[in-house]
């Protein structure tokens, strides 16, 4: 005998009411980040990091700017999901938990916006 209601079974969202969306997006962004971060790290290590002109010239190229934008958005998304789980697991007071979750969300969105803006400014200059 199942204790689940017919509606609950059809929605398939489990006892927390969220379903597997969070879990799944964490994996999708993880898979996307494997090539993106590897590409970015290897590329950076081959550059003259002290040279402003060299770095601007590199990040100003169209495809490099597209990949770097994808990297920033995917990193922010994956990081937001991960930090959210850590806060939910270890911060117990309801007020503190909500405050930290809000703060983390705002910081991640602001960081993504800043990163995207910086890349676009260099690419479209």
């Amino acid at each position, binding site marked *: 005998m199942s204790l689940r209601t017919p509606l609950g079974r059809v929605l398939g969202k489990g006892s927390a009411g969220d379903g597997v969306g969070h879990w799944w997006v964490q*994996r999708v962004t*993880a*898979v996307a980040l*494997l090539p993106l*971060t*590897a590409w970015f*790290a290897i590329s*950076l*290590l*081959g*550059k*003259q*990091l*002290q040279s*402003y002109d060299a*770095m*601007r010239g590199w*990040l100003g190229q169209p495809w490099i700017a597209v990949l*770097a934008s994808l990297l*920033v958005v995917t*990193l*922010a998304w994956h*990081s937001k999901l*991960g*930090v959210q789980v*850590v806060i939910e697991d270890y911060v117990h007071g309801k007020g503190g938990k909500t405050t930290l979750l809000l703060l983390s969300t705002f*910081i991640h969105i602001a*960081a993504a916006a*800043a*990163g995207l*803006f*910086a*890349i676009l*400014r*260099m690419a479209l200059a």
Partner: protein
Amino acid sequence: MSQPRPLSPHLGVYKFMYTMSLSILHRITGVAAAFGFLALVWWLMALASGPEAYARAMTCLSTPLAKLLLVGFTFAFVFHFCNGIRHLVWDTGRGLERAQARRSAALVIVAALVLTALIVWFGCRAMAVTP
């Protein structure tokens, strides 16, 4: 809800295995990498702001504390990357036997240390610093 519901035993009742430290390290390095991401955005903003701002940022990155942080972020990111692959393999249902999980744990630690050393070495060259 007066009846207390069954809870899974607390972490403290389990015998310590070294694979457990990788599990907690995955979270710690993930949070550290989140701060590393903020540093990356700060660096991108400096680069987009012009030559003076970029020069200031690179001077800032050359202080001993910043170098220590960069090595820390590098290890955090690389460990999270390697152990993340291990988690993705587990998600397919493979490698969950005890012996396999111990072997992959050792592999992740070795790979993370070797990759960190390589990145720090090449990073010093790219930053024009003697390692």
